[in-house]
């Protein structure tokens, strides 16, 4: 057969592509369980890190089971939803929330002092979103861990924020990002930024203030932290993400309070 002919070239490329595709499919399928385990361990480590417990991939599962005593899923009205909170995919839910927030009525409601469940009676897009809550037991004290997810400068940013039993004082936070600028926005993963959140409060006279980032290194208020120099957009993204999520959790946070 003529090796430079069209028929040969076509057959050659088809066979090559099919063989390569098959090999890649096999590799991907056989390695998937290991990769999923790594991702789950990382999630456990992140959740533990938000209550200031450091762990390794190896002991994360054990520590997680010991420290996280309860987990449940809520909707924005604070009603419990069936399901496994750990299995909730935060990015999927986060993207759903971003989409739902495009609604101008919702945008207005977010800034409103009112409870979201009172201003927005029936929003199907919002109703559909799962908000997981993890309850941790740190030396006998109860901490509530809430996941958050938002849009940074180059890609998604996300994190976990843990609150004391009063559901007002921040106990610890963890932030991570997909591809913020190294040395600038990417610094949100650094302890110097995250440590600032501990001890801040999110309510003032039972109205939700969340936590704002301030420029200029003069964050002194009970709801303020210093922004990262040169990382304003990422810092603001963290602020917005916390505000949006806390608003959705507000009903839950106000219970018992």
């Amino acid at each position: 057969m003529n090796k430079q002919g069209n028929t040969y070239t076509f057959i050659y490329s088809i066979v090559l592509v099919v063989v390569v595709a098959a090999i890649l499919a096999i590799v991907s399928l056989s390695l998937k369980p290991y990769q999923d385990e790594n991702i789950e361990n990382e999630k456990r480590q992140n959740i533990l890190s938000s209550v200031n417990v450091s762990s390794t991939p190896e002991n994360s599962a054990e520590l997680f089971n010991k420290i996280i005593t309860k987990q449940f899923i809520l909707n924005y009205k604070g009603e419990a939803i069936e399901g496994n909170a750990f299995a909730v995919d935060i990015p999927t839910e986060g993207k759903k929330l971003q989409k739902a927030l495009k609604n101008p009525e919702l945008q207005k409601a977010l800034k409103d002092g009112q409870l979201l469940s009172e201003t927005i009676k029936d929003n199907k897009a919002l109703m559909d979103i799962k908000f997981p809550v993890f309850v941790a037991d740190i030396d006998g004290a109860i901490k509530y861990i809430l996941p958050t997810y938002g849009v940074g400068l180059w890609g998604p940013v996300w994190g976990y924020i843990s609150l004391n039993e009063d559901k007002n004082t921040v106990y610890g936070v963890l932030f991570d990002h997909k591809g913020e600028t190294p040395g600038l926005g990417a610094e949100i993963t650094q302890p110097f930024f995250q440590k600032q959140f501990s001890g801040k409060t999110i309510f003032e006279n039972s109205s939700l203030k969340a936590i704002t980032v301030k420029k200029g290194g003069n964050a002194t208020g009970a709801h303020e932290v210093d922004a990262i120099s040169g990382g304003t957009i990422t810092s603001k993204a963290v602020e917005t993400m916390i505000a949006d999520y806390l608003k959705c959790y507000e009903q839950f946070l106000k219970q018992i309070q």
Partner: protein
Amino acid sequence: MSDKETLFSAKNRELLLGPLSKNNPVLVQILGICSALAVTAKMEPAIVMALSVTAVTAFSNVILSLLRNTIPTRIRIIVQLVVVAALVIIVDQILKAFAYEVSKQLSVFVGLIITNCIIMGRIEAFALGNKPWPSLLDGIGNGLGYGLVLVIVAFFRELLGSGTLFGVKVIPQIFYDWGYQNNGLMILPPMALMLVGLIIWVHRSKNKDLIEQK
């Protein structure tokens, strides 16, 4: 190359060992610099990157050397790309499964092995014209030659930039108490370029035959 040649004849040894020094892809041919700058802030990612590139150059050289007589010339480059891309995806998947932390540090640079000119360069220049065994040696040699530079650069960058090696502190605390400080510049990419430059300088002054005649 005759069939009767032994596996490790002088010629084959040169294929394996040449790229480590006199024919080094980074130092002499100045290829693959981009990733050499990006992943050398710490020893661990540098070594993983070196092994990944070595695996890809070795396997892609062997596979394409085996296929060399069947590939239609017109789609030669596409066939090379498909093979290299498949190997890189496999390496990426394996790292994600068994070295998750390192794979996060290397992030996009594993995927970018595809664009490492050493790989395509060796396939075009060597594997398409030689038998599988010499091609394997050539691939391993070039991968290791690249890796060697990575490791040397990473050694100095991690030692002087973070005071650690493999994440373990090696500079004693007493030095810091006396006023020694880690050099933050070492962590940044420009310093990697300067280090590569310094290594090339030392390498050339040791190997006078590499210096071009005016």
